[in-house]
């Protein structure tokens, strides 16, 4: 099931648009991608080592915080008896949002026959995997009694207890678990032909054995390619509904409640769009870094930035419209709690952050109407970072505003973050950077066989 949706025919003539001349032969593609991994002596890894040290330090901060939470309890955070959710849940929602873009880029764009995805999908899928894994840590850290997290699974037990299937938190557990395992599978399947390329390019024995084992003996026969394509397309067809259901469940974590501002029917689809938005922004940041770090200007071109910036422009408009819909519905529905909450958002304790969020998510991305900005890599990178900050603000404010301002005025409390909140948040960025850096050192960062196919389409008449 495929459909040609997005690129006009005269522009799809892929290679001319999506690669530079120096990357337009099969061997050039292989060389650009594989050389950093196989010809180490000719490559400088200095920036990589610096990044690794910084991310190791941040990861240590993350681990120390998690250890402290397990040791002392969640009281070391800024959560209180009213604002019972804090940074851990916001970080969870933020990371899981980032964790959806890889699957979206791979699946949805594959179904829409967008050949340009070939040079971005590999690291986008890696990003998905790492972000979803980190996201999966937060709810457990947040549990309060994390030693009982396995009670979420139905297993034979002497207490004769079952999970509460009607709870959105149980859906969450299953959705994340399914998604992470699915993402690993999807990623690995796409990697098999590239591992075979690495195996056959390796000059020394150790990498040949390492990549050879991962390639499972892939030989590129027409039979293998045929079943590979069948499987990859079928997984893509499943990936889209899975990713949509996962983020809807995250939305249901909030919407399946009675809280003002949360009990909204728009929440599930709005979380999906928000996740796509922040995920694309993170993919663009990583694309700019990978392009610079691996000198891949020939494979990741300004045309990639241009088209993804257009997607983000559309998403920013939908996000703005979703915010406006919530405000309008609160007013139109006439419930006092809802109206009072919207007033609190605009003028209450967290108002400066709220205005900053609107600036980051809705106003600044309008710069993407300009094609000059869309094809300026530095500008796109900066705006993508801003969008990611804005999306994090959105996630924390969804929690803070509603919990700080629910039905009972006597229960109104504010959230004051502690140093452990911040260390947990920035530490998780370090853990992500660490995993990503290890990934680019070991695994081909661009899908060689898909770019080869893209390049070959330009050569055959």
């Amino acid at each position, binding site marked *: 099931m495929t459909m040609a949706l997005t690129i006009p025919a005269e522009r799809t003539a892929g290679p001319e648009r999506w690669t530079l001349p120096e990357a337009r032969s099969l061997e050039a593609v292989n060389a650009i991608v594989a050389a950093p991994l196989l010809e180490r002596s000719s490559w400088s890894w200095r920036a990589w080592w610096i990044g690794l040290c910084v991310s190791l330090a941040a990861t240590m901060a993350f681990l120390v915080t998690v250890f402290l939470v397990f040791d002392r309890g969640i009281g070391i955070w800024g959560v209180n008896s009213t604002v019972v959710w804090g940074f851990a849940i916001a970080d969870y929602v933020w990371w899981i949002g980032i964790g959806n873009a890889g699957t979206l880029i791979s699946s949805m764009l594959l179904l829409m026959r967008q050949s340009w995805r070939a040079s971005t999908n590999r690291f986008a899928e890696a990003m998905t995997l790492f972000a979803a894994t980190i996201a999966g840590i937060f709810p457990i850290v947040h549990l309060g009694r994390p030693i009982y997290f396995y009670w979420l699974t139905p297993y034979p037990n002497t207490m004769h207890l079952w999970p509460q299937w009607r709870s959105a938190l149980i*859906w969450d557990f299953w959705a994340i678990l399914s998604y992470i395992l*699915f993402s690993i599978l999807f990623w690995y399947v796409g990697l098999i032909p590239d591992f075979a390329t690495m195996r056959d390019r390796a000059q020394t024995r150790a990498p040949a054995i390492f990549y050879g084992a991962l390639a499972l003996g*892939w030989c590129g026969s027409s039979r*293998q390619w045929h079943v590979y394509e069948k499987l990859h397309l*079928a997984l893509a067809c*499943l990936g889209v509904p899975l990713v949509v259901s996962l983020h809807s469940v995250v939305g249901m974590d909030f919407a399946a409640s009675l809280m003002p501002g949360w009990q909204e029917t728009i929440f599930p689809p709005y979380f999906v769009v928000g996740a796509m938005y922040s995920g694309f922004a993170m993919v663009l940041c990583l694309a700019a870094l990978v392009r610079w770090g691996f000198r891949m200007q020939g494979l990741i071109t300004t045309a990639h930035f241009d088209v993804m910036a257009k997607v983000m422009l559309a998403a920013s408009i939908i996000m703005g419209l979703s915010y406006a819909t919530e405000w309008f519905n609160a007013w139109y529905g006439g419930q006092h709690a809802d109206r009072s909450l919207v007033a609190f958002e605009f003028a209450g304790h967290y108002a400066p952050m709220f205005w900053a969020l609107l600036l980051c998510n809705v106003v600044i991305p309008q710069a993407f109407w300009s094609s000059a900005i869309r094809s300026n890599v530095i500008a796109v990178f900066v705006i993508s970072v801003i969008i990611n900050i804005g999306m994090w603000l959105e996630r924390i404010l969804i929690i803070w505003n509603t919990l700080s301002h629910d039905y009972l005025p006597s229960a109104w409390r504010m959230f004051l973050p502690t140093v452990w909140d911040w260390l947990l948040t920035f530490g998780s960025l370090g853990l992500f950077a660490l995993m990503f850096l290890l990934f680019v050192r070991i695994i081909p960062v661009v899908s060689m066989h898909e770019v080869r196919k893209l390049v070959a389409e330009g050569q055959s008449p």
Partner: protein
Amino acid sequence: MTQLLLAEFTDQRRFVEAARRGRDAQYRVVEVYTPYPLEELHDELSHRESRIRPVMFVGGVLTAALAYGLEYYSAAINYPYNSGGRPLDAWPAFMLVPFATGILVAAVCGFATFLFEARLPYLSNPLFAADGYGGATQDRFVLAIECPQDGDDRSAVTKRLSDFGAISIQQVEP
């Protein structure tokens, strides 16, 4: 078993032609090895139709049914528990777990079928030892041909392959 001839090409168009014209040129193409999928050759080689999708469908649907059955058994039969006056078999709330697990198991079934049909893992494929093979995962197109027993036929086939543009032709044990 008969021996194979491996003919290596650099040009995709000439390679496809050599693979297609095999019947006229009196050699039998056993398999082709390419650095990216060439769907147009798949039909020529008369492989069996893949069963990946039916297997995934059955695996996914059975898992979803099993997951719903588990929810139903635990919430309506084994441990009925009134939660906010909702029905014991609260179907709207029971949809998401079968959905997610169904998709996961469908994917796993697809992967298993893929391994089976692609005959993987096969780490000791003798092909890898052949000189002319390694390029097939990089930038070369390799044609595997049933090697004629007769020496004259063999040289005729070799000649034809060279005419088609093969840059090297190797004889290997399968």
